[in-house]
């Protein structure tokens, strides 16, 4: 064994085996109660930055930062601290949040799905263009769901059985969906029908004064949270993300689990699309080629769902969305132009990745991602 490898192994042992072992699929529920320390905090060396931030999880740091920003903007920015603006802020992050729930789930399992936005846009474009051709809106929604689930199944099978890397499979699927949607729908933009109020209700309606997108996001977040933290399948997803080989050895049926994960992402993409078409009144294929998918990854990583898998949860997505939503909302009120917004978004993402690196240093265990 060469020197550097030895050191890495030693660090791994000191960080994981000697300190309190982090087993997210076991400790996930307790982690929120603060009973388990982050691995960095238990390292043998004296590292002040880890002592400073290591006691907190990334999502807690992001949430705290969001609260600070909210307070700051409320004091310093006229028109920010109103109930209507907070509802608007929440509404504006809902679609991103729903997409983020799906992405979060798949990243926790150590996968990734770059076709999520393509599934959303492609399926709904085909469905919406079928309505003027005589398909009833209800069946159009079913058609969109069918397309999403079919693509999700395909992604899952390719990753689970063909064992192709998720990054490339889903990237390829995104291209195929983009092309195929044009082939079938030949529409650059598809508009929601005017005579189907229930179809656009999830995006346009309000319940007790609260815009529906917020409620849909909240409901989806609760369901995904319950699934991830309260069911054994949810725990298996953490196990898979933390160490797939170990999970398989303990008897988790990884292949069906992987397929299920990709189908769930697809279903959430469909749900996000349902809100999207209601809210904007249209679905634009161009978003497949834009930065939307990276925005989704941004909120997921920002909130502390590490790309190495097995870490974070629904609260991470909510915290990541809240931070981004707060920044964008305040910038819009301040009339900051979107190029500056992009710079700030990029810097925030970079900061999140650095924070992720500090909290979850790469080691032998986690460096195996993507092989």
């Amino acid at each position, binding site marked *: 064994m060469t020197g550097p490898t030895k050191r890495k192994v030693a660090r791994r042992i000191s960080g994981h085996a000697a300190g309190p072992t982090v087993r997210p699929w076991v400790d996930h529920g307790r982690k929120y109660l603060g009973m388990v320390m982050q691995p960095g905090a238990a390292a043998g060396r004296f590292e002040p930055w880890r002592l400073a931030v290591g006691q907190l999880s990334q999502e807690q740091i992001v949430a705290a930062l969001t609260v600070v920003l909210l307070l700051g903007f409320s004091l310093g920015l006229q028109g920010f601290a109103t109930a209507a603006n907070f509802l608007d802020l929440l509404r504006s992050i809902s679609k991103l949040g729903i997409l983020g729930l799906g992405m979060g789930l798949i990243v926790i399992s150590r996968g990734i799905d770059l076709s999520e936005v393509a599934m959303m846009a492609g399926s709904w474009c085909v469905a919406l263009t079928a309505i003027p051709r005589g398909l009833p809106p209800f069946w159009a929604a079913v058609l969109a769901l069918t397309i999403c689930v079919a693509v999700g199944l395909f992604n899952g099978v390719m990753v689970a059985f063909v064992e192709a890397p998720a990054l490339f499979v889903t990237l390829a699927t995104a291209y195929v969906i983009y092309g195929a949607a044009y082939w079938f729908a030949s529409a*650059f*933009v598809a508009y929601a029908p005017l005579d189907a109020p229930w179809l656009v209700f999830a995006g346009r309606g309000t319940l007790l004064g609260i815009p529906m997108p917020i409620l849909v996001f909240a409901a989806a977040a609760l369901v995904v949270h319950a699934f991830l933290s309260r069911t054994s399948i949810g725990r298996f997803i953490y196990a898979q993300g933390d160490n797939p080989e170990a999970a398989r050895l303990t008897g988790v049926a990884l292949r069906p689990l992987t397929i299920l994960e990709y189908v769930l992402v697809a279903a959430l993409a469909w749900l996000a699309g349902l809100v999207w078409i209601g*809210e904007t009144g249209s679905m634009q294929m161009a978003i497949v080629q834009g930065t939307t998918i990276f925005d989704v990854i941004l909120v997921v990583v920002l909130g502390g769902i590490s790309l190495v898998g097995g870490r974070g949860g629904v609260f991470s997505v909510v915290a990541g969305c809240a931070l981004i939503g707060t920044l964008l909302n305040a910038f819009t009120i301040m009339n900051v132009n979107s190029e500056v917004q992009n710079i700030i978004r990029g810097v925030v993402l970079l900061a999140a990745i650095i924070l992720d690196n500090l909290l979850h240093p790469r080691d032998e265990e986690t460096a195996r991602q993507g092989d």
Partner: protein
Amino acid sequence: MVRECTLTALIRALSVTALVGGPVVALAQEEAGTKTAHELRADYDKNLKGKTIAFLPIATGVPLMDEWGSVIKTEAEWRGMNFVIRDPNNNPAAMQQALTALVDEKPDVIVVQNPSVTLLQKELKRAEAQGTHVIQMNMSSNYKSDAFVGADWFEVGRMLAEDVVKACGTGSGASGKVQIVQGELTAAASVDQIAGVMDTLNKDKAIKVVSNQAAQWDANNALNITATVIQQHPDLCASIGFWGIMQSGAAQAIRNAGKIDQVKVYASGEGSQLDCDQVNQGNFYKFLSYTAGEQGRDAFLAAVALLEADAKPGSSHKEYYTRPIWLDKSNASGANCYAVPKPPTPTTAADATPKK
């Protein structure tokens, strides 16, 4: 002097022959049509038939470029010309490669849409140097080629703003608050439109621009920005957007806020049926169309003029500006709105868009 006399005599002699031989010729004409018609068409065909016209848009699948492509293709095919299209799919590197490959194939005319003022200029220069006419559409590069066809963006911006001043400015009794939704801050279409808009809006003291942001040509971004703006400024008077499809998101945000009857939503764009639908549904108060179909025809006629003139490529610069037309509920129908065509199938797209 002597020469002129000879010429006159010759013409006279010919007229006499024509008069005498008239009935015979007329008989022949009944069977084969007039000679002039044949000659004109033969001349036309000699200049055009078998020539190749290549079309290189920034991307296909966009109503504007698809309409251009579809018009150019139809016109070219009717004249027996070859039509070639490449789809670089929004990728500047692929576009440069596609253009290089196209120039090497030596078509007779290239119709190109520039993503920036510098990206393609070298290749366009090379194309003209080797004998290919270059027609630039809607956004010119720094290199002035044989022809430019397109909208005058400054004028489009000015026309939008003039109407907004009428609706919201001094004496209108409205708040004067205006929102602007730009496309991309770096795109020529946005830069020149905003210059035209601001130039006009600044002349009226009553107008106050409360938000001036770019939505990256995306309806959802426009929706999110506008939802915040309408909530901060409930007395907003007008919203100006630089593209119909993007601005439909802004209109939706205003509709969601229940203010679609109060806020006047303006947009400029290519004028497809999608835009007309927005006007007729009451989402757009007024729409300034730069008529993509007319632009496609203008581009083709520019090509015909160049081929018929048989001039050396690069020896002249002609401009063909588009006349923008206002659409509102009274005229947003019929020929003013073109049906969104299916994108022409890219030819040899494989080498135009290499997959990494």
